[in-house]
């Protein structure tokens, strides 16, 4: 049987979900016998191949134009898209800026902070524009599996992946459903 192809990416996230993914520890060896990790933020290849993959794990909310493009690309190239972690599922902690305009948020962060002297707003063509609001994945693209958690612990990530490897759609319910840091 061909290995299933898996790609991961992180958007507006703290990397904690990927750390938790690595926390599946020695099971990674077993996992890598059964999957092909085509790309991830922590490997050389960052994006899944155009030919597509079976499973995409996305962590983080969507807070700028690059992330918006990234999640759309992930959706196009992944048969099953998994929103991994509170930020991907709900927008999470990044949505704290949503009550204010992006201009106010930038000014608050780069100009008005008490420790800032002569601050200027960052502006460069390489820097992506912020979106008006931080959004969860499913406000932009359809999501197939949701896994809450800040981060979801390694066992729950392992459960989701091992179900997919076994050819089943994971059901995140009962004790597998935990919000935030309520592990």
């Amino acid at each position, binding site marked *: 049987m061909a290995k299933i192809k898996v790609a991961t990416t992180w958007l507006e996230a703290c990397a904690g979900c990927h750390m938790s993914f690595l926390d599946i520890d020695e099971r990674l060896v077993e996992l890598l016998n059964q999957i092909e990790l085509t790309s991830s933020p922590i490997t050389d290849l960052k994006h899944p191949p155009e030919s597509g993959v079976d499973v995409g794990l996305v962590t983080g909310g969507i807070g700028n134009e690059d992330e918006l493009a990234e999640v759309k690309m992930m959706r196009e190239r992944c048969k099953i898209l998994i929103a991994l972690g509170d930020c991907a599922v*709900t927008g*999470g*902690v990044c949505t704290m800026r949503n009550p204010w305009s992006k201009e106010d948020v930038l000014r608050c962060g780069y100009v008005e902070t008490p420790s800032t002297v002569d601050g200027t707003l960052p502006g460069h063509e390489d820097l992506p524009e912020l979106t008006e609001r931080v959004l969860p994945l499913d*406000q932009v693209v359809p999501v197939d599996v949701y896994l809450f958690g800040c981060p979801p612990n390694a066992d729950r990530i392992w459960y989701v992946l091992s179900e997919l490897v076994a050819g089943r759609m994971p059901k*995140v319910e009962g004790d597998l459903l935990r*919000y*935030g*840091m309520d592990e």
Partner: protein
Amino acid sequence: MSEIHLTIDGVEAVGQSGQTILQVAKSAGVDIPTLCHHPMVSDLGGCRLCLVEVEKMRGFQTACTCPATEGMIVHTETPKLAETRSLVLQLLFYERNHYCMYCPASGECELQDLAYRYDLDHWLFERPAENKDVDASRRYFVMDHNRCVLCRRCIRVCDEVVANHTLQMAFRGSHSIVSADLGLPFGESTCVSCGTCLQSCPTGALVDRRSVYGGHREQVDRTPTTCMQCSVGCQIEVVSAHNRLLRVEGVWEAEPTNGLLCVDGRFAPLYDEKRERVTRPLVRRDGALVEASWNEALDAAAAGLRQGGVVGLATAANTNEALAAFKTTMAAAKGKVGRIGKTLPCVKASATAAVTDIPAADLVIIAGADPLEQNRVLGYLAKRAKDHEAKIVLVADGENTMAPFADVKLTSAEVGQLAGLVAEAKQPVVLYGAELTDAAKGALEGLEAKFLGIEPGRNGRGMADLGIAPLDADGAKARLLLLGEEKVCGCCVPTQNGAFTVAVASYRSDVVNEADVVLPAPIWAERSGHVTNLEGRVLALNSAVTMPKGVRDEVDTLADLASRL
């Protein structure tokens, strides 16, 4: 009341007429989810989570308000109900900030529990980007309107349990918020910081400043014990983690006050205790108090007390066990024992009242006491009686915090009117305190009412039961003072006047600083033993945290001292 029979989820359930479906289901062991329901207050059917299907009734019924009737066939967990509850939860999560990841209530939140129960694995609706204010104007706890589910439990406990009526809803629809006194900051309102709303909040909307992020559920220890801040004896649970005190909660099901606490019991001991603790035995050497070992200190204490002419004085901030040990030790020292602090006048009463009689009374006479100031929970209970049309009669010659709530205010000279008022009442209750004047005492005696004496000392009733009464201590050559954590000063403890003094105390004070030997004592949360409340109930104290190293229980200290005499 008659027996009624229902079928709930296929189970035969027996209830009483007048009960709701929720009550009958609960007694039959069927768990219907609730959110706005709280056992201490009336139900309003607001949150829609307790919806059930009743055969032959149209639509869904709210189990918390729907009266149970004979022959009802009720279904509480159908796919349709699960779908509806799930949608209700989606709407609740959508309306405000219910991001668990940075909420202090996560891990001990009723909204979260319900979302788990109905498998909300994602949110259907994007949250509107609107921030409500956070009201941090109160000293002990914070109101974050963004975490509020508008269940109105806080409003109802403030009305029905505390009878303080500070809270109400303001605005309409999604703009609704819980408001204090029609829009004042909570800290400037009539709020009395009893914390009953805090304890009844199902989410992270009301948060205790001290214990926030201190741990939840399995991470904390809960020790049932008795509040020792006054003589009412409210039953509390001390919440601690890793031997650190987090907070105090009332026990809803436990008499005498059924979960009702006051600022003095819930917050003050944790937030406002600034006195310096005595944590090592101290002996006076070359004029100064210096640290000593327990053996040295006990030897020095015994040597001083052996010289004779000893008087023992105890405060009411001690357990029954410590007071009994105190008497034994004083017998070994061949000295008399006496009480520090005010005592309750002896009133000949036709019948005695329990604390639970106060809210059920139709006439509450308060004489020689200021319950709202000194034993606040009794004041709240009297106000609760007033909410049920009871008359409050205040007998006071000076200012009294209860005065704004009194229907009749009498001075000691006007107490003749009491007999007429009592004659009109069906369930009169008399609360009398240490400031009772002779005239008022005379007028009260003989009234056909239930009497409750408000002991001024924390365990004053326990002291009285042990026969420890005030005593003239002048001329003593040596003194043993059992102070506990009582705030003592020169006006309640007679001046030392050269007498050799041993103080068993939890905190430093002027009296302690003048002593010759100081033996450290535990504080409320560290004690075990019993106290006797103002009704005469013997209530247990259980130690929630261990004593600091160097502190010993008074019972052991006094026994060791006695063996040296």
